[in-house]
């Protein structure tokens, strides 16, 4: 489903010096597989998701999703591909405040060609438990409800790949598990490959496959890895 090969991402700093953020020799995700990627804050998790989603363009290397080489597409091509094939759940929800819950889900369909299914949007909201909140704007919803809307939006176009960037970072502990369960269940039901990024180990523990960013990204490998449960503390 997802194949990353020799992926590099470098930014240019204000002083002109390059800032290497990603150097991933290989990473893959099978169809329908659910994986979690853990790493310390600032380690490049979001950047990796952005490159996979086509939001950022890789400096070098290949990202192939469902056989489509993302890096060889034009920017508009990547945008179009992302609209139709990739769902993205943001850490800060990123709902548009002027739009209702239903309209935010429909917005996910707006930019994908030929897809604008109001009925599907309503079903998605019902599935995430917001059937009676469709006409509410984000300001009138709780944080948990907003993230549910964001999950529903990410599934609007029946994506093949779902990327979730710390979806529970801004959720209260009581709702965190609900969100994780929701994301995993809907991904499983629709046979969507899921790559969830988090720094919370309690979330990572629920997944069968856990990858460390430090293991796959050469850029961060000189720093000590984060402490895993049961492991002795590493001494420099």
């Amino acid at each position: 489903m997802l194949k990353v090969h020799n992926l590099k991402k470098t930014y240019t700093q204000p002083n002109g010096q390059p800032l290497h953020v990603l150097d991933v020799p290989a990473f893959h995700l099978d169809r329908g597989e659910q994986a979690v990627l853990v790493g310390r804050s600032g380690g490049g998790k979001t950047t990796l998701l952005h490159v996979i989603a086509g939001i950022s363009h890789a400096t070098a290397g290949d990202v192939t999703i469902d056989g489509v080489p993302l890096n060889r597409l034009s920017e508009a091509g990547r945008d179009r591909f992302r609209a139709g094939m990739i769902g993205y759940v943001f850490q800060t929800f990123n709902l548009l405040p002027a739009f209702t819950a239903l309209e935010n889900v429909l917005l996910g369909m707006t930019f994908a060609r030929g897809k604008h299914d109001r009925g599907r949007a309503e079903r998605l909201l019902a599935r995430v438990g917001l059937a009676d909140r469709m006409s509410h704007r984000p300001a009138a919803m709780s944080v948990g409800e907003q993230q549910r809307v964001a999950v529903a939006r990410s599934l609007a176009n029946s994506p093949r790949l779902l990327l979730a960037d710390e979806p529970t970072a801004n959720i209260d502990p009581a709702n965190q598990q609900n969100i994780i369960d929701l994301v995993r269940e809907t991904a499983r039901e629709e046979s969507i490959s899921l790559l969830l990024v988090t720094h919370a180990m309690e979330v990572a523990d629920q997944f069968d496959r856990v990858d460390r960013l430090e293991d796959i990204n050469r850029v961060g490998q000189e720093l000590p890895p984060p402490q895993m449960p049961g492991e002795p503390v590493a001494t420099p």
Partner: protein
Amino acid sequence: MQALQRISGRLFVLFVLLVLSVLVTFFFRLFVFLVLFVLVAFFFFRRNAALLRVALRSVQQRGVASLLTAFSMALGIMLVVSVLAIHGVIYQSFSTNASLGYNIIIGAKGGKLQLTLNTVYYLSQPVENIPYEFYLEFKDQEARGYDYQFALTRYAEHLQRSVEQSPGAMLAGMNGVLAIGSQCVTSTALETIRQGQDPTARPGRFRAFTQLAIPLCLGDYYGRFRVVGTTPEMFGALSFGPTGERKYSFGEGRNFQTWNKDHGYFEAVVGATVADEKGMKLGDQFSPAHGDPDGHGHERKFTVVGILGRTGTPNDRAVFINMEGFYLMDDHAKPIESEDDEEVSEGEDAETVNEAANQETVLVVPQDRLQPLPIEQREVTAILLRTVDPISALYLPNRINEGPVAQAVLPTSEIYSLFGTIVQPILRVLVLLTGMICVVSGVSILVSIYNSMSDRRHEIAVMRALGARRGTVLQIVLWESIILSVGGGLLGWCMGHGLVAAASPKIEAQTGVSIGFFDLAPPVNLLEMLGAEVSSDWVRQWFMLSPEVLLIPVLILLAVLVGLIPGLAAYRTDVAKSLGK
């Protein structure tokens, strides 16, 4: 650059289709234009309904700012629509007067435009007067004979014959009268008699070219309205309207008569506006003021016998009195000039002599009528002339202008020249100014949307992250600009038309032009309006359409232009950076 071309592609296609729709209307007019526009709009909006919805919601989100921005555009469009309506009113008003029922105005030598304005529109002051006898040169022999019977020359001739027939019996008593009579004639008239040239023995010199000649005597006022001394032919024989097809009619009463047993020579007809403003009705009597709206009133009173139906011409704003009655008012008789002033009896002046002549036994009118003013003491301000054929209208003015007495002008030519030389450029400048106001309003749309971009960077980044291309967010911003511009424009159109409709009763009272809420500005030649000279009738017909039809396309174009700058800011949004903010 390639992406930018793709981005603006759809809107460019829309604009091209709109322009094509406008072009098609040159053949099939407004109906087809509307059908095409609706089809184009339906097709385009259907494909872009989602983007339009996003843009609309963004506009709603900035509610007060959007409303104020759109309102500024509405004010600009309201001014444009009002100016176009004024242009239409003036154009229609000029068109209504395009066919006056006559094609030449004869008046005293002087300014042609002043003569035309004074005669047609009752504006400005009369240039001067011309002798009544010049007017008689346009009449046939019979009419001349009738008028000349009131000539002092005839009176003197009659007295001479009376003296010759009964010299002994009347000499003593008539000596003084004979002396007075002989002093009353002009030297020219005496010479004419001596030479045996009887003016009643021939038709007028210009009679062969004349179908209709109507005299006008100006100088008096009733309130702010002009009083016009004329003949019943003014409303009996003249017509008006764009093609001269409309006859004068009376809303109440009838036309005045030259002499009436109830009112004598003192009948009047008033225009519809005069009747409304002064509250006049049939049977009312009034006295004209001499020379000035605030001048002294004549003693003579005229009786209103008719109220004209509204014509939409300046005749709605005038009072028409019988010319015979006009002459009989004090200060309207031209003083008699004598070659030998010393022949005038001591202690007697010309007016006394005139009164004496008038008070003598009536020779040609029944005993119960006043003696009409002798023709030598009459003057006319203007003569409305209709020639027998168009060729005469080309020949006659030259012949008259070569003479020392009067000038002839072609009023239609002067009116259109005035319209084209003065009115049209002024209207063009007004349209330009109001158009610039709309451009300023467009800039306010630009500023409003641009200022919102800094607050909306995150929102735009989210849309981009959801799969919107750069061109899509640019389109959304352009749609916002179009919504504000066209929405404000439609509001302004309604405000402008509402304003004009509310003022329509006053406009109609002043100009005779009626304007409804949905009445568009009259078709004009757009090329000529922009200053281009068009010689081809085919091309001229192509571009004859109401300027208001172009409002929406122009607003869309303006919106696209002003929306480009904030649109490009959205286009260049860095998604990754802005998502984290």
